[in-house]
């Protein structure tokens, strides 16, 4: 790996900025300027702390939200359960503010939505950033979080994606199974834009991830060893699902993700490059170590083979009337005819028709039932059966 060590040496000699090619040079300059600005886009720490400490006092009533349209009885029953649940959650949850668990669940929903609609990772990361910043400065009731989440996603999509890629708002609302309307959504978007004084390009951990990746790619010729950017993006997304990582500085978080990946791949040469980068960008060692630990824990959960049980209980399965009727008709009752147990003795007590039966049957001449008559039992059958 002499090439790699020479690369790191080159970086080390970067003070002169002469040996490096223009591209790497430019990248490092970008990095430095972004680091200077990143503090503007951090969610307020106190707000995040409040969220973390807010206890999740939810009542786990396992009510399967499964609506069958047009079947009056079951829908009445479901409505009853729904009302009960709503009352209880209203009493307990709405006085507490948004908790970390609530926010994490919402971010996972956003991940599903972004993935479903084909939005890029940048949209998702930006949306999470907006969500965190908004929740950190505003005290909101948990019942508004779905609306806020979808609004953030929509704003992010409008900023990042091409016009043609963005689906209409009513589609977004329908798929996310939300209960608010399009006008609610646009009002919420306005509120968010005001509160956050939105600028076009927020600097997120993803920006840093891309830059780091580009630097490493340009510095090393061993392309095979470098994990793909998609893989790193996926890992970053998994991290963002936990509230705690919103406290990290984006530059540090991105670097932790990369370091963690190199750690897992055990590629020492890459780690050297990373160390040099860290030195240049003046990232504190202890900080990096702290975040690396947390990222490592998150990654073990993410890539563990044990599956998280999907929470179907939150999803509404709406089926058409015909399918619903079909489903109910199919639950046929047990037929009224009582079971006829097969005799433990063989059927060869019947006077004929044995010749068509399969030969593998071990037909015994034995234990006739209460109704069988010995005289009716021809002896040739006994011999035929025994094999």
């Amino acid at each position: 790996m002499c090439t790699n060590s020479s690369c790191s040496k080159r970086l080390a000699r970067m003070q002169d900025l002469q040996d490096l090619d223009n591209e790497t040079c430019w990248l490092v300059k970008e990095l430095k300027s972004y680091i200077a600005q990143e503090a503007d886009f951090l969610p307020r720490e106190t707000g995040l702390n409040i969220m973390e400490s807010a206890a999740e006092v939810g009542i786990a009533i396992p009510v399967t939200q499964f609506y069958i349209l047009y079947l009056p009885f079951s829908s009445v029953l479901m409505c009853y359960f729904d009302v009960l649940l709503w009352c209880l959650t209203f009493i307990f949850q709405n006085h507490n503010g948004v908790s970390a668990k609530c926010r994490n669940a919402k971010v996972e929903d956003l991940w599903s939505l972004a993935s479903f609609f084909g939005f890029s990772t940048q949209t998702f990361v930006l949306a999470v950033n907006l969500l965190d910043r908004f929740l950190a400065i505003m005290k909101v009731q948990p019942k508004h979080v779905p609306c806020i989440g979808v609004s953030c996603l929509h704003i992010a999509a409008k900023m990042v994606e091409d016009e043609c890629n963005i689906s209409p708002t009513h589609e977004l609302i329908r798929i996310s199974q939300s209960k608010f309307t399009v006008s609610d959504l646009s009002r919420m978007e306005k509120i968010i834009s005001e509160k956050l004084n939105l600028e076009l390009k927020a600097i997120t951990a993803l920006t840093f991830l891309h830059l780091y990746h580009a630097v490493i790619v340009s510095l090393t010729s061993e392309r095979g060893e470098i994990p793909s950017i998609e893989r790193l993006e996926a890992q970053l997304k998994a991290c963002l699902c936990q509230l705690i990582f919103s406290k990290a500085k984006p530059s540090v978080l991105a670097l932790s993700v990369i370091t963690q990946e190199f750690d897992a791949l055990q590629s020492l040469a890459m780690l050297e490059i990373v160390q040099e980068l860290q030195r240049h960008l003046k990232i504190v060692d202890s900080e990096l170590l702290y975040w690396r630990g947390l990222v490592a824990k998150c990654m073990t959960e993410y890539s563990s083979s044990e599956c998280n049980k999907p929470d179907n209980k939150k999803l509404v399965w709406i089926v058409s009337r015909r399918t619903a009727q079909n489903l109910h008709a199919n639950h046929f009752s047990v037929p009224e005819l009582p079971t006829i147990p097969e005799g433990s003795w063989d059927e060869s007590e019947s006077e004929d028709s044995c010749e068509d039966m399969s030969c593998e049957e071990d037909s015994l001449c034995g234990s006739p039932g209460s109704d069988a008559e010995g005289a009716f039992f021809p002896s040739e059958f006994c011999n035929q059966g025994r094999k």
Partner: protein
Amino acid sequence: MLFNLPVFIHLYERLNSRNDGRCRTSNPIHYVFQTDQSPSSLEPNRASRRAMSSAATTPPSVDKVDGFSRKSVRKAKQKRSQSSSQFRSQGKPIELTPLPLLKDVPAPEQPELFLKKLQQCCTVFDFMDTLSDLKMKEYKRSTLNELVDYVTVSRGYLTEQAYPEVVKMVSYNIFRTLPPSDSNEFDPEEDEPTLEASWPHLQLVYEFFIRFLESQEFQPSIAKKYIDQKFVLQLLELFDSEDPRERDYLKTVLHRIYGKFLGLRAFIRKQINNIFLRFVYETEHFNGVAELLEILGSIINGFALPLKAEHKQFLVKVLIPLHTVRSLSLFHAQLAYCIVQFLEKDPALTEPVIRGLLKFWPKTCSQKEVMYLGELEEILDVIEPTQFVKIQEPLFKQISRCVSSPHFQVAERALYYWNNEYIMSLIEENSSVILPIMFASLYRISKEHWNPAIVALVYNVLKAFMEMNSTLFDELTATYKSDRQREKKKEKEREELWKKLGDLELKRGLRSDGIIPT
């Protein structure tokens, strides 16, 4: 044309002011038929009239506005209860000497009176003629009623001589050639069945026979001389009756006979096999499939383990091909029950059953596809995890095809599997195999399906997969996206190539002599 012609003729008539005193209805068609009878004044229209008269075979009705009589109206006119063909001694009224009631007679004489009444009930009446022999019909009915009660309550009446008389009476009454159905027009799913005319007597005969079989004094060892294979064969033929009430009684009768006569069991099973095989491969016509399957359900339920090879053969060679019949909806519930019972008895049969279903999967009939999906879900509800692993690949390949079906009911039914908790747990355990199979079609329909409800359900399914196995999901998304991009690039290149060729062609054409070749 047919519509305008009557109006035209009507106007022509008015012009000629034919007033023959016939009542003129406002219906022009009606009028046309009446004018048929005096041809003299309608010279120009004779040809068309002849065409009309040859076409008009049924009496005119208000429904025949557009020239096509509605099928239901036609059927309603022809609806009548049918009686089976019996030989009748024409004209001679039947006389039965009234016998005293059984309860009025002292106990020792009752058995003999019982036999005499049975013999009397052997006379069969003609119910097609609603006016004949009314008094005697009523007498027979009350006698039969009395016999039913007598058999239910009494003790010590069943002598050895009674058995042949009972069987004879029952045979005389119920065994008959069934009338032919209007086989071309009778659609079991839509039309009302034609009912049996002699049901007032027939019902009591069946009732009597069932109670006789269930009676505490009944001894199969004596009865089996008279209830033999010939009897059973004729009984099975009656299952083709169109009257559902009769089939219901026959079902109970056969069920009791199967239960009590062990010597006949193999024969009954074999005959039922024959009936089903004939139904599937030759005629596709038999009205009693559902009832026979119900009986089989109770038989299968009682199978002893380990299952005999004969029964496994029956499952694979008869029950599974039964799914291919066009009129599956009439007996699907019972068939599915039988299949599930088999699988509960012997889980090792799961693989051949599911492979069989997949082999016969309907390709053009969506209604059947929905039924198959329902049956499959019930099978999956009882499947063992080890068996599931064996068939998961072909199974989910078929499910992924169903999910992307343009017929929304099929897609909906298939997607609904993800609401079933047990199936979800099975999928979870094997998500690394199943997710790659399902992913491509799910992702594609999320963008392309015409029905928004389906798109919403797909979201649920994708979300479930995402939570199940995030790493694999992300990998698949990434490969899918890169595949799509590569495809798009290829498309673009192909377009550009064609464009270039087009330009080349144009340039070549222009160069030769200034004329662009066509």
